[in-house]
């Protein structure tokens, strides 16, 4: 095989068709793979953003309950929180269902005057999956 093509008596240097075909095929394969990874990465970013907001919401609700007097902590409380998040330049509204439950511990083993508080946040991913984040603690009555 010669790498020289004679045109009008002058030698012209270039790449062969085979070389180009192989290079193009490799490039297309790689680009296809990369293009497939970017959406996964974007989805992971979206999920982590929603989860980060959920972590903040559940912790805020827990702190709100902990700030209440022992007697004032409700046995059950449910509310919906909407949070606007900017993702890829667009404002997206995420909706979180926040539920808190408080139950007086009365198993006879632990000391009395304790309320077990559990706060749960539930939200839906864009792909329809439901995710949940929960925190649990105990609150003590400070009088006998």
């Amino acid at each position: 095989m010669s790498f020289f093509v004679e045109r009008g008596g002058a030698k012209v240097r270039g790449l062969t068709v085979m070389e180009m075909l192989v290079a193009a095929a490799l490039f297309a394969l790689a680009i296809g793979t990369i293009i497939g990874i970017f959406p996964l990465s974007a989805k992971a970013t979206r999920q982590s953003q929603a989860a980060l907001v959920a972590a903040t919401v559940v912790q805020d609700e827990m702190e709100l309950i902990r700030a209440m007097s022992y007697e004032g902590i409700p046995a059950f409380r449910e509310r919906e929180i909407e949070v606007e998040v900017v993702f890829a330049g667009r404002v997206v509204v995420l909706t979180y269902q926040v539920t808190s439950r408080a139950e007086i511990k009365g198993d006879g083993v632990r000391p009395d005057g304790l309320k077990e508080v559990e706060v749960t946040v539930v939200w839906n991913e864009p792909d329809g999956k439901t995710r949940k984040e929960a925190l649990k603690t105990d609150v003590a009555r400070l009088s006998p």
Partner: protein
Amino acid sequence: MNRSRGCPSQRRVSHSRLGIALALVLSVLALLAIVVAAVTSMSLGSLNVIKVRGSSARSLYAAEAGVAHAMRLLINDASYQGTQQEPNYSETTRWQCQIFNNLEGSTPTAPNGAVIPDGMTYILARGARKDGSYERRVGVLVKPISLATSWPFAVGAGGEVRLQGGQKFIRGGIKANGPIRFTSPTRIEPRAGHGRVLTSTSLQVSGPTRMDSSQDARSRGSISGNIQNALEVVANDSTIDTEPFINDYRTEPNLSPSEQGQLVLPNPVLAQLTDPTVNPDVVVHTFLPGSLDLDGKVHYFSVHDFPDGVVFGNTNSIIGEGTIVVVGPKGIEFNNSIGSASDPLKANLIALSDPDAPGPLPSINFKNNSHIEGLVYAHGDIDAGANMTIEGVVIAYEGSITFGANVDFILDGSSLSAPGFEAFQGVVDSGGGPGPGDSGPLEVVFWQRL
């Protein structure tokens, strides 16, 4: 020269260009792969941050559950010390806490260096995942306090509470065994964390009534009318909170097992208020002086010398700080103003029935605007048709409380440290503080998330 073969230098140059396209493509792909790896790594990294944050928060609240557990142990026994743990607190977390008690000055420092002042206790709690990872610690310094300062009700009655006419401002809780009625604009705010409205009978609201969003109103029976902004308004409540006050004239708050969780309405030891041999600060009056100088003493007016009760008229004045006690069915009447915003009367006003002469329960009646700092306490009714400001505690032991004009009640539980009410202060010895095995409420001095 043979052109078909080219000269040696041209052949070297042409052979060195073999496969250059592949090399270029691989270089570009390598660069792209690095970019993709970086982006993917950032996404995975943020997911990892979420996971760490969640585990850390769960550990922190597990540690605080340990603190709550320790506090209850200390409330039941102020001298408790040792280690507690709950290895299966939740599906993923556990806690352990150590209690360092310096009630008697024997443990002035905790192992982590925290200084424990005399009379206080330090709780060091650890929460973590069950495998020990993501540990969080919480350090809390607490001290036992007298029951008097934890009394949660600005107004407490064995009978009814009627707040009618004028504007009502209650800073603290209200509880009555009988109905509670708000028929005029009423605002209830928490004070020192207390601001509940509780009744063992019914709650009737016909005037604009507003509570704080952190407080609740509960009735064993019905609730009529609207309370704005309350956290919860619960009728037909069956919790211990709406169980009636225990007002069976016991002079100590000790509860039987079946009474656990109920509140005993304070009732004084009579001798502390009437017998100078028991309490040297008692001054026995046989007539009502024109100007009564309280001088820090307990001024006793007995039913024998005052069968018609004690009436403070326009010619009477009260100065200084102290306690006024009237025993007998007619109680105390104030026809004049006592105290003012700039010079409140710092006195405990107490009307008690005579145990040797059963009869109508004595009442306290205010007919003119008054401003009092202290305990207003009657075995019978407490009535006021004038503007009242009371910074302390108002208790009608078996009677009802009726206020018909502007009212400002500000809870100050320390007013229950009045003479005669020692048993309700948690004091058991001359040291002034709780002893081993004594139970009592706790005050949090500081709470540190470490």
